[in-house]
């Protein structure tokens, strides 16, 4: 009762801050911050579910011999780990950050399409319930790899339709989220905020949203064809009926490669916000950053077949995809050089967001180097489908995308909760994560080069040492993420009050002009941007 009274008083004081009560606030949420929070919490839960699967994988691979799981179940783990981490953890985390930050950064009161925002979030728990419940069907979970290559994926049991429909739902959710981002950024910017004054996080998300709208329907089409091949007697991918299994790979990777950039472009945006703040100096080469992002997005549509050099493409095809893939190094290089030059002659301090952004800078670049090696088609014949590839994409996705998300959370968390968190605890999280992530993934380069294929549950004894090292790194990395949860809970519950600027710096961007925590309806009156 007392609580309700204070709330009523509070509401009377700040009419704009009126919040709906109880479960309805979340079920019927239309507020960008509430939906953003739900996305972030959902992503965190999925991060732990996908992480638990990875822990079982690393446990089985700790030493040669089959100790814990059946090979079929192992394949289900590998498949679901990927689907959960990509569609359940990284993508929703980025959408959550977009929901929270885009209106704050462009000076808008909310997202443009709040009710669609609600749908796009609430589809996700149902999609992942379908996907994860498939583990309890006859034949177990999906075990054909997240790439769903036919004919193997068509051999699945009852998990098959559940997986397909889950992917359809995830795609619908992503498209709605993307439409919302585009409409919001295009229509609701504060007066004076021209496109080339847009914060880079908004820019990278705008481009990401276009990528999502372009490729999610392609994925939906591909999996629908799988569905009809399985149940309705079509032969899109069945050679016995005149179909072509390689066509699926072309369609899948036409989605899949832009998808890779969907997972990394918002990370570029976050890092481009954080490095200038803690270098106390504006971003070097803002225009070049925008153009580089757009170039990467364009190139992502013409490089897809570098995922399939071994399928037997004509020589000319292999040449084209090798050269176009190498070109990506140019705009990506521009970005890395710009971030580095932003720090040059700066005044650097090393708060947790900056630490994570710096780890991103170093470790994403290592992932970029192995990417450059993988682009070389003749060498790719040796790397393809080995642990070298596993090391490569985990370097760009874990200390790449995931570290950028963590950097973003540490950067904006006080703005969301109004409380500072324990810098000591966050720094512990940083150091343990950064060291263990390298112990986890660096030896996988060696394993792949020495000849260990990916997606195998057991291996020859020559691979034992590096697998043990990698597993130990994995367990430490997994455990250290509990520190992340501890920091978030602590900041949500209380702590020293955060100022509007939060950081001992002059962070640019409209989000720092509102108090912390940000008001429920971010900007009732549009701010002027000069």
């Amino acid at each position, binding site marked *: 009762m007392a609580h309700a009274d204070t709330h009523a008083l509070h509401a009377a004081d700040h009419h704009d801050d009126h919040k709906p009560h109880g479960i309805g606030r979340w079920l019927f949420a239309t507020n960008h911050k509430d939906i953003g929070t739900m996305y972030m919490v959902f992503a965190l839960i999925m991060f732990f579910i996908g992480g638990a699967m990875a822990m079982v994988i690393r446990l089985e691979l700790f030493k*040669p*011999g089959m*100790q814990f*799981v059946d*090979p079929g179940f192992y*394949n289900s783990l590998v498949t679901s780990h990927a689907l959960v981490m990509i569609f359940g953890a990284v993508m929703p985390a980025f959408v959550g950050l977009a929901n929270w930050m885009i209106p704050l950064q462009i000076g808008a009161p909310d997202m443009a399409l709040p009710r669609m925002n609600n749908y796009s979030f609430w589809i996700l728990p149902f999609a992942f319930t379908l996907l994860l419940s498939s583990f309890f069907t006859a034949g177990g979970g999906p*075990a054909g790899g997240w790439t769903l*290559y036919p*004919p*193997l994926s068509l*051999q699945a049991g009852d998990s098959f339709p559940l997986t397909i429909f889950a992917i359809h739902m995830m795609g619908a959710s992503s498209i709605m989220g993307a439409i919302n981002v585009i409409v919001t950024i295009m229509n609701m910017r504060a007066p004076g905020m021209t496109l080339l004054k847009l914060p880079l996080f908004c820019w990278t998300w705008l481009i990401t949203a276009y990528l999502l709208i372009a490729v999610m329907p392609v994925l939906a089409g591909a999996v629908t064809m799988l569905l009809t091949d399985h149940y309705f007697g079509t032969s899109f991918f069945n*050679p*016995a009926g005149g179909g072509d*299994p*390689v066509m699926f790979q072309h369609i899948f990777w036409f989605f899949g490669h832009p998808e890779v950039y969907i997972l990394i472009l918002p990370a570029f945006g976050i890092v481009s916000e954080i490095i200038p703040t803690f270098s*106390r100096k*504006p971003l*070097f*080469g803002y225009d*070049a950053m925008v153009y580089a992002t757009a170039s990467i997005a364009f190139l992502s549509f013409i490089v897809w077949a570098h995922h399939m050099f*071994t*399928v*037997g493409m*004509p020589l000319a095809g*292999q040449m084209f995809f*090798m*050269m176009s893939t190498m070109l990506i190094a*140019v705009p990506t*290089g*521009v970005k*890395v*050089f710009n971030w*580095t*030059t932003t720090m*040059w*002659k700066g*005044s*650097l*301090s090393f708060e947790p967001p900056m630490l994570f952004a710096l780890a991103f*800078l170093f470790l994403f*670049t290592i992932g970029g180097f192995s990417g*450059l090696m993988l682009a*070389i088609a*003749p*060498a790719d*014949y*040796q790397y*393809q*489908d080995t642990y070298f590839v596993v090391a490569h994409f985990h370097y760009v996705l874990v200390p790449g995308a995931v570290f950028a998300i963590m950097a973003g959370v540490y950067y904006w968390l006080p703005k969301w909760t109004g409380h500072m968190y324990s810098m000591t605890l966050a720094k512990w999280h940083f150091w343990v994560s950064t060291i263990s992530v390298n112990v986890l993934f660096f030896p996988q380069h*060696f394993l792949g*080069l*020495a*000849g260990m*294929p*990916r997606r*195998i549950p*057991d291996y*020859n*004894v*020559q691979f034992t040492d590096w697998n043990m090292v990698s597993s130990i790194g994995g367990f430490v990395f997994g455990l250290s993420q509990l520190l992340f949860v501890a920091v978030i809970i602590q900041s949500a519950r209380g702590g020293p009050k955060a100022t509007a600027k939060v950081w001992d710096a002059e962070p640019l961007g409209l989000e720092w002009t509102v108090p912390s925590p940000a008001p429920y309806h971010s900007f009732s009156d549009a701010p002027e941007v000069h």
Partner: protein
Amino acid sequence: MLNRKVATVMTSLAAAAPTLAYESTYNLPVGATDVSARVYGLHMMMFWVCIAIAIVVFGVMIYSIVKFRRSKGAVADQTLLHSTKVEIVWTLIPVLILIATAIPAARTLIVMEDTRNSELSIKVTGYQWKWHYEYIGKGVNFYSSLAADSNEARQLKSGIDPHGVKDYLLNVDNPVVVPVNTKIRVLLTGNDVIHSWWVPDFAVKKDAIPGFINEAWFKSNKVGRFTGQCTELCGRDHGFMPIVVEVRSKEDFAKWLADKQAAAKAATSGEVAPTATAMTTPAAATTAAL
């Protein structure tokens, strides 16, 4: 010109240290063929290019982190916003590096794709979960499955220590036998799902796809036993269908082939030899035309 020089230097570097990298637990093998040595050379060339770039880029990053600390009184230079000159330079330099590396890569790729003038053709068919080899025109074909002792040890909670098993998971009942210094053409297809045939020492990895016939080739300069594994997820026992290629002297191979042919003749009088049912699609024909 420079690229060719770099490639030559790298290849000779690779050739100079074959024992070092051979059976390495952390690097690619130089391998047993000219192509695998070239691929190793490309791999090391790219590795050193990456190391060189890393030294420069990480060097600047680390210098900035050490030198421009606020705690040491560094004051930010607010005028450093962009510089067209510098930006053009760091766009062009990577382009030049890429062109320099693409040329040797393209040359090697052309050699790898040239399957003409082979002296022996072997059709490899992937099954869940074993390989079938057919020596085309020689009347010899057989299945090749995981060796029995490995198969026993790899069962869940078998209690058998893999260290005591000979070539654990890299041993088969019937290895492929080929002659040394002979260009072998491999024709690959799949019977059920997609598999991929990989022998690192030959730098050969090609998918075995139902409905397609893919081509690859190798010419081993060394006699010996070379192993590999399936590298395309093909179901439950994907990890348990290894490849073993035994390269023998031409005389030994001829003797082995004669023995096999005699055995096949004795065994199949009246019996039809199994042939994989694979169709040649237009796409496969295109590959063959190259």
